[in-house]
C-alpha cells in the first residue's frame, strides 16, 4: 500500500534529474548559510522556497505534455496582459517598473514569460508541424518580440535576455534555416549599435564598467572588482567553508543572491567551482537527452528550450560574476537565494520530467 503510494508519487519524476537537482540545492543551501553570515533564517526561508518550487515541479511532472501544450496559448495571453498591466500600473522600484499588485501579493509578470514564451512557441510549432513554413517562423518571432519589448522597456535586461533566449531556442531547434541564422547574426551585430543608443544610462554603464571595472571602483565597477577578488583569492581549494574573508567582512554585495558564486568560489576554490559546473552539466546533459528522445515536436522543442535556458542562466551568471559578461541580474540557478527563480526553474524541470515520463503513453 505504502509502496504503491510511493511509486505513484515518484512515477513521473526523473531519477537522474532529481539526483542532480538535489545535489545542486543542497550545495546551494550550504553556500547560502555562509553567504548569509551564518544566519539560519535565510537557509530556512530558502528551504521553504525550494519546497514550494519542488511541489510545483512535482505537479507539473504529473501533467501530461499534451495538457501542458494546451496551456500555451492562455498562459501566453494572460502573461502578455499582465505585462501590459505592469507597463500601465506597475510599481516602480529601483528605477524599474517590474512588479504588479494583484490583490494580496505582488507578482513579476516577466518571470511568467520565461515559461510562457517557449510553451506558446512550442505549442504553435507543434500545431503547424505538418505544414511548417517560413511564415510560421516570422509569426513565432513576433510572438517572441512583443513580450521581450515590454520587458526591455521596464527595464529588465536580465529577464528580457532569458526570455529572448528561451524563444530563440525554440526557433533554432524548430529548424530555423541556417541562412536566416547567419542573417540574424549579421543583423544582430548591426542592431547592437542601434540598441546601444536606446539603452538606459545605467545599462550602458554596466557594459562600460565590464570592459574596465577599475574605471569606477566604488560605483558600478564595485561588484565585479569585489567578486573577482573573492574568487581569485580563493585559489584552488578555497579558504574553507565559512572562512571567506571577502564574504564575511561584507565586501561582497548581493552575496547571497546574484553573486553567491563568488562566495562559493572563495570558500571552495576552483575545486568547488568545477564541481558546480559538473552538476550543471549533469542537469543539462540529462535535459538534452530527454529533449532528443521526446516523442512529439512540442515535447522536443519545449524540453530543448527549457534545458538550454537553464544553461543560459548558469552561463550568464557565472560569466557575470567572474567578470567576462556584463552585470545583468541573472541568478545562479537553484543556488541564489530567492523563491521566484526557483519556482520558474523547477516548473521547467517538472515539464522535462513530464515529457520524459509520459513518453511511453504517447509513443506511436
Amino acid at each position, binding site marked *: 500500500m505504502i509502496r504503491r503510494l510511493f511509486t505513484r508519487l515518484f512515477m513521473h519524476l526523473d531519477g537522474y534529474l532529481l539526483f542532480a537537482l538535489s545535489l545542486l540545492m543542497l550545495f546551494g543551501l550550504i553556500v547560502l548559510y555562509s553567504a548569509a553570515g551564518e544566519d539560519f533564517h535565510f537557509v530556512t526561508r530558502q528551504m521553504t522556497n525550494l519546497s514550494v518550487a519542488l511541489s510545483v515541479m512535482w505537479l507539473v511532472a504529473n501533467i501530461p505534455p499534451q495538457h501542458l501544450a494546451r496551456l500555451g496559448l492562455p498562459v501566453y495571453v494572460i502573461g502578455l496582459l499582465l505585462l501590459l498591466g505592469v507597463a500601465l500600473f506597475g510599481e516602480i522600484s529601483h528605477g524599474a517598473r517590474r512588479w504588479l499588485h494583484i490583490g494580496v501579493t505582488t507578482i513579476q509578470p516577466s518571470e511568467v514569460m520565461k515559461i510562457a514564451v517557449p510553451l506558446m512557441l512550442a505549442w504553435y510549432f507543434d500545431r503547424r*508541424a505538418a*505544414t*511548417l*513554413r*517560413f*511564415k*510560421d*517562423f516570422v509569426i513565432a518571432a513576433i510572438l517572441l518580440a512583443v513580450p521581450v519589448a515590454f520587458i526591455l522597456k521596464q527595464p529588465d535586461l536580465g529577464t528580457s535576455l532569458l526570455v529572448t533566449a528561451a524563444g530563440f*531556442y525554440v526557433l*533554432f*531547434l524548430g*529548424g*530555423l*534555416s541556417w*541562412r*536566416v541564422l547567419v542573417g540574424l547574426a549579421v543583423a544582430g551585430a548591426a542592431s547592437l549599435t542601434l540598441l546601444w543608443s536606446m539603452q538606459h544610462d545605467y545599462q550602458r554603464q554596466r557594459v562600460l564598467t565590464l570592459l574596465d571595472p577599475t574605471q569606477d571602483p566604488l560605483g558600478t565597477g564595485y561588484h565585479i572588482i*569585489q567578486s*573577482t*577578488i*573573492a*574568487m*581569485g*583569492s*580563493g*585559489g*584552488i581549494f578555497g579558504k574553507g567553508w565559512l572562512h571567506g*574573508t*571577502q564574504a564575511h*567582512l*561584507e*565586501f561582497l554585495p548581493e552575496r547571497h543572491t546574484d553573486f553567491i558564486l563568488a562566495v562559493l*568560489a572563495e570558500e571552495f*576554490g*576552483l575545486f568547488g*567551482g*568545477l564541481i558546480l*559546473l559538473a552538476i*550543471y*552539466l549533469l542537469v*543539462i*546533459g540529462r535535459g*538534452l537527452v530527454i*529533449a*532528443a528522445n521526446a516523442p512529439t*515536436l512540442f515535447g*522536443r522543442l519545449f524540453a*530543448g528550450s527549457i534545458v*538550454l535556458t537553464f*544553461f543560459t542562466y548558469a*552561463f550568464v551568471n*557565472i*560569466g557575470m560574476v*567572474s*567578470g*567576462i559578461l556584463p552585470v545583468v541580474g541573472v541568478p545562479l540557478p537553484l543556488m541564489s537565494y530567492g523563491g521566484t527563480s526557483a519556482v520558474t526553474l523547477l516548473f521547467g524541470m517538472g515539464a522535462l520530467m513530464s515529457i520524459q515520463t509520459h513518453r511511453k503513453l504517447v509513443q506511436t
Partner: protein
Amino acid sequence: MKFGAEIKNHKLELHNFRLRIALSAAFVLFAFFLLSARLFYLQVMQHEHYQTLAENNRISIVPIVPNRGLILDRNGVALAHNYSAFTLEITPSKVKDLNETINGLAGIIEITPRDRKRFKKLLEESKNFETLPIRSRLSEVEVAKFAVNRYRFPGVEIKARLFRHYPHMETFSHVVGHIGRINDRDVERLEEAELLANYRGTDHIGKQGLEQSYEKQLHGITGFEQVETDAGGRAVRTLSRMPPTSGDTLYLSIDSKLQEIAVKAFGKFRGSLVAIEPKSGEVLAFVSQPGFDPNLFVDGIDSVNWDTYNNSLDKPLNNRALRGQYPPGSTFKPFMALAGLELGKRTPSYSISDPGFFTLPGNSHRYRDWKAGGHGTVDLHKSIVISCDTYYYGLAVDLGIDNITKFMSHFGFGRKSGIDIEGEQIGVLPSQAWKMKRFKQKWYTGDTVSVGIGQGYNLATPLQLAVATAALANNGQLMRPRLVHSIHDSKTGQTRVLAPETRDGWPLKPENLERVTAAMVDVTRPGGTASRASAGAEYSIAGKTGTAQVVGMKQGQKYVESQVAERHRDHALFIAFAPADKPRIAIAVLVENGGHGGSIAAPIARTVMDYYLLGKVPKEPLAPDAAEEPEHD
C-alpha cells in the same frame, strides 16, 4: 530554395532536431570550457594578485591626526594651544529627520540657538557624509547622558577631539590668526600642492595669521593605523600603527606682556602699533585694535557673532597693521631729510625763510604750512623738530619724484615687507609709472609737493612705517620683519633659530644719520612736538609725530578739531626708536581719528618703550590726553 522548407519526412525532421541538439551540447561544452578557463585564470594564474587585493581589502589605513604645533611667545607663554574635549557630532546622511534629531538631542543636552545656527551654516558648506559638530566641549555629565540615550540617535556620536584654543583672545588675533574648518578651496589648494594625503582625517587648517603662514610646520605629519575592517569601514582589530608626528612649536619674537601693555595703552582708540628690534627685524609687538576673538572662528563662526564683527564700524576683522593703508604724514619727513642729505640736495646749514606757504614758480596755488604765518628761518634740524611743511615742499620739488621714489623704496615704502604672515598691503609709493598706470595721467610737479610731507598719493601700512623706522635705527640697513623667532622641531627635538634676513636698504652716511637722529631726539624734548609724552624718560628717544588727514580740506579752510565728526578727525601717527644712540626698539604707532600724533600716539609708544627698555609696567590705563598741546606737528 524556399526558407523553412516543408518538413515532410518525420525521420529527417527528427534527424535535424537531434543534430541541433548535438550542436547545442557542443556549444554548452564549449561555454563551460570557457567558464572553467576563466575560473582557472582567476583562481590559479592570478591567485597571488587577488590574494594581495583581498588582504588590502581587509586592511584599511586609518589616519591618526597629529597634534597641531603650539604657538608660544618669546618666553614660552602659550598663544595657541590644544586641549582635548568631547564633541557631539552628527552625520547628516545617516539621520532621517535632522530637525527631529536635534530637537531630541536638545532634550538631554543643552543646545543653544547659536549652536543650531552654526550647525546650519556648517551643513550648507559641507558634504553629506561628513560628521559635523552640533555641540562642542561637552561636560562629563553630558557625555554620560548621551551615552545612556545613544540608541535613540543613530548617526549621532560622541567624539574626543583636540581643540585649538587662543587664551589671549583679542590681544593676538591679528598675529596668531586662527584655524578653521577645511573648505573646498583649501582642498583644491592642498591637492595642487600634493599635500592632501597628509590631511586625511584633519578637519582644520590655518586660515589667517601665523596659523595660516606656518601651516606646514604647525600641522605635523599624519600617522596611520592599519586596521582590519569590513566593507562598511568598521574596524575589527588593529594590525599595526605608525604614530603621527606632532607639528612644530613656534616661538615668536613677540613678548606677550609687551603686546598686552601695547593693547591696553590704546584704551578705546582704534589703531595699530608695530614694534621691531632694529638689528634683527624681529617683531616685538604687533597690535591692530580692535581685535576679535579667534576662538569663535575655529568651528565656524555663528551668524550673530559674524554680523557683529562684520558690520561693526570699528572693523575688528581688519588687520590694520598689515593691511591698513594710511598717509604717513609728517613721519615721512625724517626720511625726506635723509634723502636731501644723501642725494646732496640739502646741507645741514641750508635754511629757508618760511612765510607759511609754498608756491611753485608761475603758479599762484599756495601749499600751506600747518602754521599760518610760518616758522621764520628754518634749517634741516628745525624742520624736523617743529615739523615745518614749507621746508619739505621745496625739498620734494628739488629732489624730484624719481629720486624720492628710488630712495624711499630702499626703506620699504611701496613694497611688501616680507613679514611672515600673509595678506600684506604694499601701500602707495607714488611714482611717474604708478600714476600713469593708476590714473592714466602724467606726473605733475604739483603732485611732488605734497608727497614731500607724506600726503598726496602717499600711503603706508603701520608695518611699513615700523620697518622703515627700524631701518633708520639700523644705519639704513633694511631688515625683513619676522614674527617667528625660532621653530622647535617636535621630531628631532631641536630648536632652529631663524637667522635675520637683510634686504636692499640704503647705507646711510654716519654724519647724515647723526643729524637726523639728533633732530628726532629734539622732537621728544621741550620745544619738540612730542615733548610731553617723552617727559622724564630715562633714555633718549628719537621720534617724529605725524597727522594724516581723513577728510580733505579746501583751500583756505581751517581744520578745527572740535568741529569735525569723530570719525573724520585726523589719524595720529608717531614713529620712534630708542635708545637713540644704541637703538633696541623701533616703533610705529597709528591712532585712527586720534588727532595729534604728539598727544595721542606718542604716549602709547612711550608706554611700550618703558616696558621694553626698563621693565616698567604702567600703573593705570593711559587716559586719552585731554589737554590741547600748543604744538601741531
